[in-house]
């Protein structure tokens, strides 16, 4: 009656047991120490791997960006230009990005079969289809859980949104709120990160010192992993307050701001660079809005005109500063846009054949994977879906996406166990 499913394979169960062994060791040590994690996780953390995701909200047109089809029925007026990699052409709307092509990897065979904004975005960020009963953690939460280093004092999962500073998001699902995002609007620091004005510097250090000493006495009697975690959270908070400057993009040189284009999106990209440099493990920058049912071409000229330079600057800077090997860059949307041009010169929702871009980490450089047919209506080679992409993001930063995550003693798959990473784009 036992079904022999893939997850019961000998290899899988062996590695799982190994993992369990690690965990139980951790738990034993955790009795007194801090929240111990597996050795593997620890060494991963030391490598300081990071992820930055560009969320092209509304659905970026692949035909106006990564997979142009000039001169065809579906191509529209958009022309293709050569890039820094001979033979690879992208849209003329991305001239700066084209010069960074040698860092990028274009995946032109994405097929997600979901044309709804909400559902598509859910799939792209969680690597799974939405189900009514179970919620899955987003890539940012998984990255924070597997990559974030608590000792930086900074949140591991940050959203940079045009909206404005908010509190904690709800993207972590069963991983728990610890890994939910902190959202930053523009260059505002996280909530409550300055002491109340009514408290003097002296009083501030005094009250925290008293709190520490009260804890010392308690912890000498009843100390467990959870009491440690609790007292540690206050120290983390203080560290975050000390490092508030990290969220202040104005601390970056004016010349850089100029280079990134002195506009909102440029500032957000620069902030992303600053956060990554300071050890934040996951940053998501949203660029809105690409839902171009009308006037697709004009809108893309405008939107990509804003996107191109700061994005190219960021990729270039990460590379020049030696961070690209440790930083995965992803440009994704909820879906692409129809090859068919509608009556309003628009393109509609289209998930059958579109593109996602990756760079950095263990991702192949200057590469194209997957291909659509001449008019871009179908994937003819290298078809991938959201689940495979999700695995690939994690693999690209050295996380074994086939391993389970242990949450409260329960093992939960990190990514959809039905699929695996796209090995072809990983080095």
């Amino acid at each position, binding site marked *: 009656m036992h079904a022999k499913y893939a997850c019961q394979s000998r290899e899988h169960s062996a590695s799982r047991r190994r993992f369990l062994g690690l965990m139980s060791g951790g738990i034993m040590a955790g009795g007194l120490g801090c929240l111990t994690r597996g050795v593997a996780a620890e060494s991963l953390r030391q490598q300081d791997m990071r992820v930055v995701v560009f969320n092209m909200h509304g659905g970026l047109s692949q035909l106006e960006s990564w997979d142009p089809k000039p001169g065809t029925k579906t191509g529209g007026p958009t022309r293709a230009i050569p890039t820094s990699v001979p033979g690879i052409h992208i849209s003329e709307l991305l001239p700066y990005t084209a010069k960074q092509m040698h860092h990028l990897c274009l995946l032109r065979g994405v097929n997600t079969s979901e044309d709804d904004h909400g559902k598509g975005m859910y799939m792209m960020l969680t690597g799974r289809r939405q189900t009514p009963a179970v919620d899955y953690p987003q890539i940012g939460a998984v990255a924070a859980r597997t990559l974030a280093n608590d000792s930086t004092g900074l949140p591991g999962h940050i959203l940079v949104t045009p909206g404005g500073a908010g509190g904690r998001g709800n993207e972590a699902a069963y991983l728990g709120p610890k890994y939910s995002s902190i959202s930053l609007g523009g260059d505002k620091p996280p909530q409550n990160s300055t002491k109340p004005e009514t408290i003097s510097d002296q009083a501030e250090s005094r009250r925290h010192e008293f709190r520490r000493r009260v804890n010392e006495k308690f912890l000498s009697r*009843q100390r467990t992993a959870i009491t440690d975690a609790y007292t540690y959270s206050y120290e983390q908070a203080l560290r975050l307050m000390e490092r508030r400057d990290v969220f202040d993009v104005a601390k970056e040189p004016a010349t850089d701001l100029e280079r990134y284009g002195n506009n909102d999106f440029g500032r957000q990209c620069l902030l992303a660079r600053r956060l990554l440099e300071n050890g934040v493990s996951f940053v998501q920058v949203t660029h809105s809005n690409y839902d171009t049912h009308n006037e697709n071409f004009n809108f893309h000229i405008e939107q990509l005109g804003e996107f191109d330079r700061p994005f190219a600057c960021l990729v270039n800077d990460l590379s020049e500063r030696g961070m690209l090997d440790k930083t995965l860059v992803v440009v994704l949307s909820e879906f692409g846009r129809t090859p068919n041009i509608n009556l309003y010169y628009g393109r509609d929702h289209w998930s059958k054949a579109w593109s996602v871009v990756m760079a950095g980490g263990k991702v192949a450089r200057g590469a194209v994977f997957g291909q659509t047919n001449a008019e871009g209506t179908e994937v003819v080679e290298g078809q991938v879906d959201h689940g495979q992409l999700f695995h690939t993001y994690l693999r690209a930063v050295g996380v074994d996406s086939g391993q389970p995550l242990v949450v409260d003693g329960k093992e939960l798959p990190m990514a959809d166990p039905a699929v695996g990473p796209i090995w072809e784009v990983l080095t």
Partner: protein
Amino acid sequence: MGAAECFNAVLQRIRLGSIDCFVVCLAVTFSSLAIGLKHINAQEPATTATGPATATSSLPSGDHSSDDSLANRIDQLLASEPHPWNAAEAEAGQLLRRLSLDLRGVVPTQDELDAFVADSSPNRWSIWVDRFLADPLCDEHLVNFLDRTLMLRRSHVQVDRSAWINYLREQVANDVPLDVISKQLLYTPWWNLEHRPAQRFYLDRGGDPNMITRDLGRVFLGRDMQCAQCHDHPLVDDFKQMDYQGLFAFVSTSSLTEVTYKDTEGKDQKTQLYVERAAGDAPFESVFEKGVLYRTGPRFIEQTELVEEYDLPDARYAGTAPEGSLAGTVLPPKRSRRQALAEQLASRTNRAFVTNWANRLWSLAFGQGLVHPLDMHHAHNPASHPAMLSLISDGFVESDMRPRKFLRSLVLSEAYRRGTVPQIIDGIDEFGSDTPFAAVGQATETELAAALAKREDLAAVEAQSLSAYQTAREAWLKIQGERASARSELDAAEAVMLAAKQKSSDATQLLVAAQKRHADTIARTDALDKASANLQEAAKIAATEDAEFQQALAVVQQRADAARASLPELEKAVADTKNSAEALGQELATSIANIQTINAKLQSIHQALLAADATTISQRQQWSAACQALASNESRIRRHERMIACLQAMDAAQRIAVELASQVRSVAEIEAEMPAAEELLATLQSQWTATKNAEQTATSAVVEASEALQRQTFEISQLQQSWEALDHSTKLVSTAEPLLAAQTAIAQELEARRNQLAAAQSTADTAKQSAEIAAQAVAARAQEWTLQEAKRKSIEERIATTRATISQLEQSLAAAKSLAIEKQAAVQVDSTRQLATASLQPLSPEQLCWSTLRITGVLDAYVRNEAAELEKQAPMAPDADSNAKAARHRQAVRAAFDKLRGIADVYVTLYSSGPDNTEDDFFASADQALYVSNAGSVYAWAGPGNDNVTQKAIAITDNAEIARLLYWTLLARHPTEAETQLVVEQLIAAGDGRSAVIQEMVWGLLASAEFRFTN
């Protein structure tokens, strides 16, 4: 498969029991708790061995021997299997804090703490339990418990928050049994707005049948069956897709439907009703077995399918709308599966339901469930204490399923009042005592051996019962297959019948139309004939031959003839349609007969299925029991192994400690020898120095004598030379008289000198001799000194060696201690699960919020304000009785909670696991700390005001007294000396800024780890 392999396979399954595979299916399997537990009891005789240090805790007489039968039975059960790690009763302050948090969701006030400690009544504990249970805060706490448990912190979409909270408040205030509440939640008439709040369970899950199925399992049955939606659980044998689908069948035909109705003012309003339609079970397949279709009617886990009477597809809805239906709603089905769900799921005879609630309330009091996680009841995750789970499940029914009454029993038990530190390790920080860990260990070893001895048998029983279960299930599945195909046939027949019915009704309509046309034509003919006769009559009377008149008559007659002529055709049409209608009626009757035939066949398959199902269930229960017995035994083995490891570690630490102490003693002894040795050495040294001086004198005398000797010898040789020279000269010179005289003088001088030389020689010899003697004395002294120095050195070395040993031992002791403490932590987890000790638990987000607000006086101030407001609106009669006063107080508390709920929401956002989680897993994050530190509110609340602790402390001048007040109020314990000192230091350093420093200290205590937890 040999026994060992078989055993390993079983272990493997157990290990994998909590592993999930495909979705986030939390591994949940079904089990018969009732039968399973009996089985386990039979398998596990009560433990008998207890160590010398395991005396049962002694409780103050005032709090002893409760009058509560369930509480006593809980304690008796634990006493029958005493755990070597029992803790004594917790300290009074800690105990009251625990009770207050568990029953009222807030910490006690300083006044309450003082009064409790001062209370000397013989039944103090039960008095305070009852006092807290009657407090309106207890109502709010239970409302919060129900809200969290039932709705998993989901947002309010269809049902307004205050309506929902007030609905729960009424249930709690009226002490409504949990089965009654559950029934209401699961079924109330849905066709109007009367029961809206109770329908929130469905409505705010968007009516989604899968979400509702999952939560029916999680909330009411303690089983998260999510992973069996699409396939049998791949790893846990007792978790089947059929179980999920059986539960799903109760709600699969219900959904949210928008209805427009007129409100009291006659305006159009829209609302969503959770409408139920007539049942129709859709076939399902496993994603792993594509193409094999299964069917199930509504069924509960471990119960056979619900037998429903069969209604023809056209007779499944009520004929008329029930009274009070909203206009625009559809008719309800004749048989409501939701009603059946409510009645049978929320039944006191449904053991899973009863156990689930008993376990949840147990968890509310004890911090964790006997089965934990709370929605993981399955064979591979047996209760930590199966007999206890069984006992409290019975006890909960005896308590009429009333939460307050049941909680009262739980907290009256001694088990509830245990402290956190096991007596065996209480106060042995230094391991210097002679606690007989090894002796306790021996008893534990005996138990371990017993458990190990049972292992293979239990595994064999499990394997056997598994195979019997599998066989039974195969047989059942086979009939399932027959049923599925019969059901498909029935579906087809029903479709045929509905089509036939449609055709028949169409034909009947045609017949009626034809008949009408026929009848109409006859009537027309008659009327025309009559008109023609009348016209003729009229013509006769008028006697006219008017052409127009004639023409009219002709027309009338013509029309009458035409109508008459059409009659045969119409008659034929009537006959034709009649035949057709009759034929179709026959067809309908045939289709109905066909349905009945198939149904009859289906019914007989059903009977066989039910029988096979009953067998399968019973086999499953036996297997589940065997599985639980095995798992319990395994956990017993691991527990004992951990305990032995811990005792060994403690024993090792203790042995090192003893050895260390002896080494410390011996180093002291050796060190005591040192002064005497050193003194002797000093004496020898000075003697040696004296002889050395003498030797030096002698040596210099020798030198002097030998120098004199040399000098004289030289002078003699000079004289000799002179004499010889003269002698030579005299021989050459004849007249050498004067020379001869000189020579003689020299010879004489020489002679004299020679004599002196002999004396000098003898002096030198003497000096040499005494120098030699002196040298010997020095050598002797030197030897003495060297010997003594060697002695001293050896003492020094012994000290050094012993010190090195001590330092080694200290290191080993530190290592052994930390190992022992680590092992203790593991055993303490077990001992908490075994109810021997209490454990540290984080406060829930709500407990943290309301406790903070209460300590800082904010909550009580709000209650006072609300009471004043109520008094203003409706002054109490001066002679109002205590009931009226209590009701007024309750009203004020409710209003205060409503006003402050926004703050609780902030805490929930920060500290809870968020929506859709059964429990709040503890986590600590920087944003929580940032809120407490910087949002300003907590710091502001900690300021003086509302007669709070800060205000009281500011009024006190004695610094130590302030320390006592702060620790007592905020942490429900007295400060240690060092803690008092800490507070006093702060106050002294504060100088004029005492108020500010007291506020900071109150804040610091609110932000401390100790405040965040309870034990």
